[in-house]
């Protein structure tokens, strides 16, 4: 089965019903996408399918086929971090950092859909992502900063 992952075509031999997460992590060594629950409840495994956030632990391979799959490893473009990644560093969001990949993917999708989100937009876009260290306020702050950075880059 051929998959388009971070702009690269990858061939995998696997059951089409197998969740994408385990193929990414165990077959392709793309371990930035995390296992948190396997039940679609924590958001740690979030990837983008054609730009839309998806829980890769609940996404069978067959429904990822033919779509552009973006993982955290593919967010950086030409050595430049995505504004959300940059803002996470700048705001100094993380404690353990394990939720960050999924948070960043969900936030990147939000900004694409809604470049100037308010607090409630951010909250509802990220409600399915859990941070057990409780860095939520900083994540909101980082997403807002990323929105400003993206805007600045466009106008500058």
């Amino acid at each position: 089965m051929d998959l388009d992952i971070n702009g690269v075509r990858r061939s995998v031999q696997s059951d089409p019903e197998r969740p994408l997460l385990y193929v990414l992590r165990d077959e392709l060594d793309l371990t930035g996408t995390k296992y948190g629950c396997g039940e679609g409840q924590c958001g740690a495994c979030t990837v983008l399918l054609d730009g839309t956030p998806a829980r890769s632990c609940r996404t069978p391979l067959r429904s990822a086929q033919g779509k552009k799959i973006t993982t955290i490893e593919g967010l950086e473009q030409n050595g430049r971090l995505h504004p959300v990644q940059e803002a996470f560093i700048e705001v100094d969001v993380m404690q353990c950092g394990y939720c960050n990949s999924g948070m960043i993917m969900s936030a990147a999708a939000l900004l694409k859909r809604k470049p100037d989100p308010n607090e409630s937009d951010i909250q509802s876009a990220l409600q399915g992502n859990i941070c057990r260290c409780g860095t939520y306020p900083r994540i909101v702050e980082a997403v807002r900063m990323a929105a400003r950075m993206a805007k600045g880059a466009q106008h500058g």
Partner: protein
Amino acid sequence: MVENFEPERYELHAAPVYSFVPDRRDFLKLLGGGLVVLVALPGASAQESGGGRGRGAAGAPQDIGAWLHIAESGAVTVYTGKVEMGQNIRTSLTQAVAEELDVSLDRIALVMGDTMLTPYDIGTVGSMTTPQMAPQLHRAAAAAREMLLDLAAEKWNEAKPTLSVADGVVHNASGAKLSFGELTKGQKLTRTISADARVTPASEWKIAGHDLKKINARAIVTGQEKFVSDIRVPGMMYGRVVRPAAFQSALVSADMQPAREIPGVIAVRDGDFVGVACDDSSKLDRAAAAVQAEWKTIPQTNSRELFDYLESHATRAVQWQPVESGKSIEASYNIPYIAHTPLEPRAAVAQWEDGHLTVWTGTQRPFGVRTELAQAFGIAEDHVRVIASATGSGYGGKHTGECAVEAARLAKAAGKPVKLTWTREEEFTWAYFRPAGVIDVRSAAHDDGTITSWQFHNYNSGNAAIRSPYNIPNQIAEFHATDSPLRQGSYRSLAACANHFARESHMDELAHAIGMEPAAFRMKNANDPRLRAVIEASTERFRWGAAKTRPHQGFGMMAGFDKGGYISCCAEVTVADNKITVDRVVQSFECGAIVNPEQLRNLLTGSIIQGLGGALTEAIEFENGRILNPHLAQYRVPRFSDVPQIEVVMLDRRDLPSAGAGETPIVGVAPAIANAVFDATGKRIRSMPLKLS
């Protein structure tokens, strides 16, 4: 009161009695040339035998807390047995070294929690890294700086006081320079320093005490950071343990053959352990399901009867003392079992080579896990290497090594390395829980607020922060061991959460009983100026005492002390249709000299949010040896929408030693909210999680 941490039955584990090291190697040889500073532990001398401490890196002296190496390249490497769990000590400890050595942060590397490379450490527990390990590293770096100055003084034949260090270079008065690398080249210097060597006082800190962003942030946001469950070694297989449906089950029979018939699968039965390992993770479900195992279990109690169970299974009866004077009240408070729910479940990668075992795992006690492994396999501890890898945190839940042992058992059978990642359901079921508890309190106070009697009896949850920090001369505070229906262990702040919930709820009840304003009642009984200072700071920022602005609104507060940290928390709630909404939390905290203000702010905010889960939603339900809610859809941990407006007030006491801050900030929200709910409704909730019905 500050110096002695209450020993905690669920946290401190005795070091191994024996520590055989048959093939002593000179660990210093591993480090190569340059200079090495070893820091003796407080109270240790070179002659002491070690008093039961475990051994760290092969051949390393015992009673050494840490060492620091400056290589001939000028690179600075610090070796400590402490572990990074998200509390950002990799960053704060780097600051300690940079402060004394005056070298740029990117030249400093920390090797942490690797039993082959680092000194023995009891564990990253009890908020002890900052008060104990950070001063050791300050001393090591200060001593290294003196050694470098000595080398430069000798080389230039100049007096040492005329020389200075700046940014990794020694300068003399005439402007000549020698880098650390130039000075250490060709050297082989070792110095052991005492635990009381002089360091820069906090009032003069330039790097420590200031903000510094998390050091490995870029690796984390790009997905490059390798957490335990991300580790891959060549030829690795994937493991899964086959579990019984209930606790206290014994294996009756197991037919391993159907699993073994699947190509690329090995299946192990050893005593009551049953598990499989597969060359491809896609086979795990099928292989585990193919094992035909039959278990026998026994009837067990349930969460509805838990609190009666705890009181009726106490090892001895409570002796209540008569209350002599004042208005007397009594009440009982309940705390359920809760799960740590680290976002990364337990995981381990185990590899055997020639009878030597290496295990990468997320643990707060790598040396403790090494002992568990050595005992499980009957091998010497120096044949076991445990590497505490980056992990999706622990909150006290990753002290033990069962996942490491299971991975190692599978790897031994497979003859190949095995990675075992627990499922979320396993993490909710087969780890251990924060102890449940019942706390009975009887107290009395005069109308002027003087507390005349305080009797506090804690069943099972533990004795951390069990004693009241208020001025109560004859207080009684006792812990009562009971049989615990579920496996239990340490949890962030240990029993300080339960004890503060009961104590500060009860203080509120007593204040209302004598008709005294709750904050004034606490100030009346708080003699410790640091306790008074946090109460003043939180109430002032909260605007405590202001009139209510809307119906169903309530205000509550608390204060407390544990593990060197002083805390006071105020909460504002709205209660409508029996639903509690937390609108605002203001929390003050004082832990001596602040090491990194931004990281502390992050920890304080995160602790408040994590504490909201235990306060409002988290409780493990169980029946007959089964966990009834082992999924995140059934066990709600705080999410974005649960976060109230949060303000933290940090009191920086540069004149006092730094205490840890990873735990105590979690104890505030539950009692503050319970008291606010009472203020809003007149209803007193004495059980966590707080619910109205």
